[in-house]
């Protein structure tokens, strides 16, 4: 049954994403001639998320974020776009469109125009174009299909295997979504937060009516697939080679972590001293498994790509955004600049932390473009050491242009950071509110800044209390740096800025990764560095292997990439094995409990039921029924009392047979999860001895859901 829920959710989310970032742009504006389909897609993704964020902020402020509002927004975008292209004022264009529609309707009524014939012709024409395109670009089509299929298979495995939302952060994001439903952009306890992803999710929810729990469980996998697509796109954009795209895409899609891929990014531990960290990291993988938590950097990065988290969505736009800058610097194409601004804004709106690698990549782009100045007479590079880049340098770049680009990026960041205006309101609200008297705005903001920029901690005496995270500088990473240097040199020789840019970017991220080990300032929080590091490594290797292949004889042209893929795939762990399942699935709670919430909300009228559970299900139940956390329930209700003082007709009690290891942070010191679950089980047994309206609603090896159904209950 859960599979069906999952398929339904995936179809809805896919439809919404296609509508938002493919159909509406196609209806509003013709793709610029200089853009490939993927250029255009990422342009629309960046601009689209920015627009959705700005509109969402306004809609939520007025509490009018509804399906009709979004449809109106899209209609406005389409009308404005079409009118602009037609060179007419929007109202006149609308009037003419209406007139044309009426005339067409009359012709249909008079049988001088047939809808069926036109539809058939359109379908046939579409099929013909598709067949022609497929015949012309069969290789590319198969390569991209393979990349998407592998990425989807690895990313969607977790959400399809369990209803649990993955990382505990996702529960918070679900709660933030529920706040948006109520028209609140600022959480009273935590203050403002970048809501770009939430506004995108809100639009998807409003457009498709997808179940919010399923949306939160599956959307992360979409981010993972888009990340893979971004890696493949970047490699393809740099080299114009489908082979590079295939290599980068498949590499990234199968960067899963585990013992056999531990050689790549190694492990990570939090430790007060470097010596202690080295000792801990020197232990074998199996030993680390027992007591080191999230030590496998690559595995954590992969897990994050299967879970709905804003950082991963923001990273999707990281490489395309920087590429837009590279291209703009070289061509002065305004569309590229707009794309860069849009992607920067979207990144800032979704997750401000990702603005840091964006700045780094932009700096790398500026350096690369300044170094790879065009020759006096623009020409295609003759030395095929690196496959020809997407855009031939045509315009000389000056520092003034770089400054202009930086200004554009800053503008994008400013547009995307409008959520910070919430601090104006929140500061006064928090100051007045007794309930949030402990919400120290300054301390919260400061804590967040120190968390994202660890090098600042030394100035404040480490106010976060975070121990330093130490990462391993593996031989693989050293090899990556060497490859990056070689590629960079080749790129300088052939004046191919994009290739130099990816080489510089990768080196920077490797250095960041190893900052604590080699003793340089940790600019970005290193554990967050892992995903974009993996991304750039995949692109770099894809580009490098493709470049290397281009120098080989024709017969080895396919063999080398194929060999590289096979070698890499040999390191891929068995996702379905017990070890990976235990680490990937049910990370923050049992999926059965979440599934129970889904089933209850599907089968019972809203607000006719109450769920008692350990606590995480609270945001899932909001807007559907009522929730009581286990501790409060045990304190408030006596199993012997009759009738039970919960007024809803149905009461469901989730009891974990094997208490889950995850504990809600601020509760764990007061309540032990195992103790709560045991007491809940006892409560149900005692209740069953004195009442006959309790039954088991759902039961598996981990969780048992009891149902108390009373006739006297009221909604």
């Amino acid at each position: 049954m859960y599979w069906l829920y999952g398929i339904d959710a995936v179809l809805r989310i896919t439809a919404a994403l296609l509508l938002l970032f493919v159909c509406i742009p196609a209806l509003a504006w013709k793709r610029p001639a200089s853009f490939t389909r993927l250029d255009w897609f990422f342009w629309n993704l960046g601009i689209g998320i920015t627009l959705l964020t700005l509109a969402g902020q306004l809609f939520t402020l007025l509490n009018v974020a509804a399906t009709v509002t979004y449809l109106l927004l899209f209609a406005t975008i389409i009308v404005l776009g079409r009118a602009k292209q037609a060179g007419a004022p929007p109202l006149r264009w609308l009037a003419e469109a209406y007139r044309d529609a009426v005339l067409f309707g009359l012709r249909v009524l008079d049988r001088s125009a047939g809808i069926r014939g036109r539809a058939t012709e359109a379908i046939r024409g579409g099929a013909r174009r598709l067949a022609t395109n497929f015949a012309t670009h069969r290789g590319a089509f198969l390569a991209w299909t393979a990349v998407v299929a592998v990425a989807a298979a690895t990313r969607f495995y977790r959400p399809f295997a369990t209803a649990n939302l993955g990382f505990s952060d996702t529960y918070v994001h679900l709660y933030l979504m529920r706040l948006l439903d109520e028209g609140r952009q600022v959480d009273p306890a935590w203050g403002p937060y970048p809501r770009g992803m939430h506004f995108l999710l809100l639009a998807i929810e409003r457009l498709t009516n997808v179940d919010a729990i399923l949306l939160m469980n599956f959307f992360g996998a979409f981010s993972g697939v888009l990340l893979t697509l971004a890696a493949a796109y970047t490699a393809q954009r740099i080299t114009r080679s489908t082979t590079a795209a295939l290599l980068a895409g498949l590499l990234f899609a199968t960067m899963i972590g585990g013992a056999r891929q531990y050689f790549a990014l190694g492990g990570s531990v939090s430790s007060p001293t470097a010596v202690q960290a080295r000792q801990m990291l020197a232990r074998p993988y199996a030993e680390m498994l027992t007591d080191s938590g999230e030590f496998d950097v690559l595995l954590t990065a992969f897990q994050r790509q299967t879970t709905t988290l804003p950082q991963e969505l923001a990273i999707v736009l990281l490489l395309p955004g920087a590429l837009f800058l590279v291209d703009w610097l070289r061509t002065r194409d305004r569309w590229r600049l707009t794309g860069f601004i849009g992607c920067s804004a979207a990144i800032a709106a979704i997750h401000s932390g990702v603005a840091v690698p964006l700045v780094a990549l932009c700096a790398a782009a500026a350096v690369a473009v300044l170094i790879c100045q065009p020759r006096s007479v623009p020409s295609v590079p003759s030395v095929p050491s690196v496959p020809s880049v997407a855009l031939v340098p045509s315009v000389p770049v000056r520092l003034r242009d770089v400054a202009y680009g930086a200004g554009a990026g800053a503008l994008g960041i400013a547009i995307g950071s409008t959520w910070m205006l919430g601090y104006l309101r929140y500061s006064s609200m928090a100051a007045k509110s007794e309930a949030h008297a402990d919400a120290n705005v300054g301390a919260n903001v400061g804590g967040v800044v120190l968390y994202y920029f660890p090098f600042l901690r030394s100035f404040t005496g480490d106010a976060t209390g975070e121990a330093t995270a130490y990462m391993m500088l593996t031989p693989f990473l050293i090899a990556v740096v060497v490859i990056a240097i070689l590629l960079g040199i080749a790129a300088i020789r052939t004046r191919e800025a994009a290739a130099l840019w990816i080489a510089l970017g990768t080196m920077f991220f490797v250095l960041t990764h190893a900052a604590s080990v080699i003793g340089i300032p940790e600019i970005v929080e290193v554990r967050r560095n892992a995903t974009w590091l993996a991304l750039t490594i995949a692109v770099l290797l894809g580009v490098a292997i493709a470049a290397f292949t281009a120098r080989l004889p024709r017969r080895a042209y396919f063999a080398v990439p194929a060999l590289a893929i096979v070698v890499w795939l040999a390191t891929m762990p068995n996702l379905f094995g017990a070890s990976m399942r235990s680490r990937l699935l049910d990370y923050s709670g049992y999926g059965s409990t979440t599934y129970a919430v889904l089933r209850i909300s599907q089968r019972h009228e809203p607000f006719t039921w109450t769920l008692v559970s350990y606590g995480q299900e609270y945001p899932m139940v909001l807007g559907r029924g009522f929730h009581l956390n286990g501790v409060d329930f045990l304190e408030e209700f006596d199993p012997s009392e009759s009738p039970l003082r919960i007024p809803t007709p149905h009461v469901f009690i989730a009891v974990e047979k094997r208490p889950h290891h995850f504990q809600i942070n601020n509760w764990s010191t007061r309540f032990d999860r195992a103790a709560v679950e045991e007491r809940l089980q006892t409560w149900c047994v005692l209740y069953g001895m004195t009442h006959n309206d309790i039954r088991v609603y759902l039961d598996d090896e981990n969780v048992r859901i009891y149902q108390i159904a009373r006739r006297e209950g009221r909604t």
Partner: protein
Amino acid sequence: MTALDDLGRRVIHVVGMPKDAWEIAAQLEVLGLRDSDARSGYGSRDLFDLARAIERRFRAGAYGFTVGADDPVPRVIPWVRFTRRYFAGIAFAMPMAMQAASMLLWGYGIWGAIDLELAQGSAIALGFIASYIAAGGFAQAIVRRGLFYIYQQEEGLARWTALRGFGIALRITLALLVPAYLVNLLFGILPWSMVLTASLFYAGLTVLWLSWALLYLVQRTELLAVITAIALAAVIATAKLGGAPPIVANGVGVLVADLLSLGAATFILGRMARKRGNAEPVNPPRLAVLVVSTSRYFVYGVLFNTFLFADRVIAWTTRVGRDDFPPYPFWLNVRYELAMDLALVVVIVMGGVVSYAIERFSEKLIPHEKRTPSSDVETFVHEHFEAHRRRSFQLGIGAVIGLGLAWLLFVSLQQVDNVRLHEALTSPVTIRVFIAAALGYTIFMFAARNVLLLLTLSRIDSAVRCVAYALVADVVVGFICSRAIGYWAAVAGVVAGAIVMCIVAARETRRTLEQLDYSYYAAY
């Protein structure tokens, strides 16, 4: 007799007393004369010169034309005329008033009952609103085109058009259920039990509205009250004597009303056509022609009916401010509906005044125009402006009385010995919505008077513009207020929409009255 006089007599014979040389020129063109004929046959420079020559000869008495005495004007006592027309004007509210009374006395209306479950009530409300909006455009189109043929004494064609329009309307409105089902299937908006109930009432009420449009077309609106009474009796008998649940009784009521209305309408239409002896239409219009000729009235009907119910849809699709935990995206709120219904008293009271005003305008316009020479246009326009102001003042008095009566009813109902009713009436939401709605409806009736005046002069584009702007204001203001403040604030949309409609309609009416001589000609 000169050729000029011969021609002049022919012209005067056709047009009677000419208003001016332009009218003579128009008639000369109708007779097929051209400038070259005027030059060669009559020695004039062109047709206009020839027309002026004929007018001069006419004024000189060359054609011996005399104006006959006016028909004797029947002696009418103004207040009797007013009373008769006033009550004829509010007859449309009879079914509504009867249902309200029946609800209070026996707890049942035709499509509602006090004991209905809220889910069923919500489904019926949805079906009611959807049917009203879906049928609105068709009803306007059917009536407009039907009356057009009846005025031309083509009752056979009127019957053919009305029944064909009815058939098309029914097919299209029922076909709309298919996408509605698909949307619900895809998006799971409402439970299927609610959707099916809403669909059944939607279908039944659509037939009812379309049948009532036919009854309006044959000018037998008194039957609406009769049919309502019978249907109410059927509902009460089914529920009280047959012991059927309220929803079934309501279903029976709608079915009875449908059968009676449709039966009566088709019978009267057939009789009308047979009486004239042209039961079979000759050369009926093509579908495209029918659509073109009625499309603007269709749009007007859809917009107008949407305006009437947009605030309910907006209020009942939000959870903001609601303390009853609406479980589904569309959930009826009885207090809101009660307040809006009570505020309708203002509409009923003012409706009679509006009806009287429009009828007086229509009956005075033609004779007034006939006896006014074109050189005296200013007086003609000025007098109508004065009459318009006078009627606005009368409508203002009607508004004061209407508001007073509505308040009186509101207070009186609080004395009724019914706890639920008392609770509902004294709730702050009901009071707020009632006050705002009464105010909104008052303004709306001023706008409606002007819109009807525009429709009387066939200024359908202006009428559509008024209603469209009003609907936009209603939806935007109502939507934002209901979400930002509370569901009950959707009533602000009614107020805003009414104000916008009032302003736009007043502007359009002023423009029309300023060129009333032209508007009159253009209308017919």
